[in-house]
């Protein structure tokens, strides 16, 4: 009768990805037996994050202020705008490249069978940003999948109609890759996008 709270906790933990009933139960018992402080801190941070973190009004990345750190950083080059599918990809680009422009996060890709259209991707926000006239070059860094390409094509047309330059990130042989093991599609992309040495 009084186990209701525990059951609810286990059930709630299952909202995390990849957590089934068994793992949820293990997490709940671990917090209760060994780490009540950690549990309380987690609860408090979860509550604050869920309440306060929302989308940046300019780039739609997650942030707790109205505009995110990247968008409000005046040392960054606002004339370059890089469009990515998810915050994880933004982080990957930020970590691995020396790109110092602004970003736009779609939080998804055009995917008709899953009901993802231009409204879900916040393209109205993107066109608003473009119409403000700061960006001169848009770099499309969506994934190299059929849906990613469709998204890039669609946004590319939107941007081009405004007379701005549009770039697509290069696709080809990965670093350390051997041509023999690269799949046919990638190889043909690599050949189409060959560069002078």
């Amino acid at each position: 009768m009084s186990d209701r709270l525990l059951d609810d906790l286990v059930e709630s933990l299952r909202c995390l990805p990849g957590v089934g009933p068994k793992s949820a139960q293990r997490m709940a018992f671990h917090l209760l037996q060994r780490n009540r402080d950690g549990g309380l801190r987690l609860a408090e941070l979860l509550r604050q994050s869920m309440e306060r973190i929302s989308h940046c009004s300019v780039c739609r990345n997650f942030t707790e202020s109205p505009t995110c750190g990247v968008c409000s950083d005046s040392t960054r080059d606002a004339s370059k705008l890089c469009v990515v599918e998810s915050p994880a990809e933004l982080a990957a680009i930020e970590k691995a490249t020396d790109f110092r422009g602004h970003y736009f996060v779609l939080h998804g890709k055009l995917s008709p069978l899953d009901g993802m259209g231009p409204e879900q991707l916040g393209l109205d926000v993107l066109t608003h940003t473009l119409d403000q006239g700061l960006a001169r070059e848009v770099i499309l860094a969506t994934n190299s999948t059929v849906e990613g390409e469709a998204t890039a094509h669609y946004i590319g047309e939107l941007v081009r109609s405004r007379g701005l330059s549009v770039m697509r990130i290069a696709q080809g042989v990965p670093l350390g890759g051997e041509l023999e093991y690269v799949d046919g599609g990638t190889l043909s992309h690599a050949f189409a996008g060959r560069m002078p040495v």
Partner: protein
Amino acid sequence: MSAGRDNLVPAFLLHSRAFRDTSLIVDLLTPGHGRVSLIAKGVRGGKHSRAMLLQPFKALHVGWVGRGELPVLTTVEEARSDFNSARLQGQALACGYYLNELAWRLLPANEPAAELFACYLPTLLALNETSRDVALRHYEITLLRQIGYAPVLEHDIDTGAAIEPDKRYCYRIPDGPVSAGEHDPAQISGAALCAMAELSFGNETLLREMRDLMRRLIHHHLDGRELESRKMFRMFGNLPQSGHG
């Protein structure tokens, strides 16, 4: 329901969705098993070439093992094909998704669909051509025939008389054509019905009549659900033109 242990099965991917951290649930179109749902384990997250292969519009060869609801995909290879999916862009791509969405929603799982499978690749190839509408109508009729709802196109369902090209008909969804009265809405010409029955498609006007009829039929079989790919088609149609792409 294992398949492809000895010989891999030709397949096209209709739809895939993420499952757990690194797996995908894929719906494939195959000739012998129709629509098959499989779980592709550990294919997402970087270094696995299988995730790259599991893309829509790519001719594949697959094998799977397991019984029950969700067998496990064991092998996937790229098939030799003249078709390069990168050529599908804009509205042609939306049409490609339309093919997938129709098969995904209408085909029953694990029932042979050899006829539809045979029709799939030629339809994809035609999407960039001027014969796109013809190919789409052909695909729709093949699909309806495959699921056992072939539209009646040869005779009047009230009188049993053969369709006459110069008469007007009213198509009673989903049963078939009856000769039309003066004020019946949504009429179709006998010529269009005959052309559809013979899968020979004539001029623009006939094609438009056929498109409207097929749209009504498919709408009926989808129980009124709207097709997402059709929204995508309209969306690409609404793009401002910049004279390129």
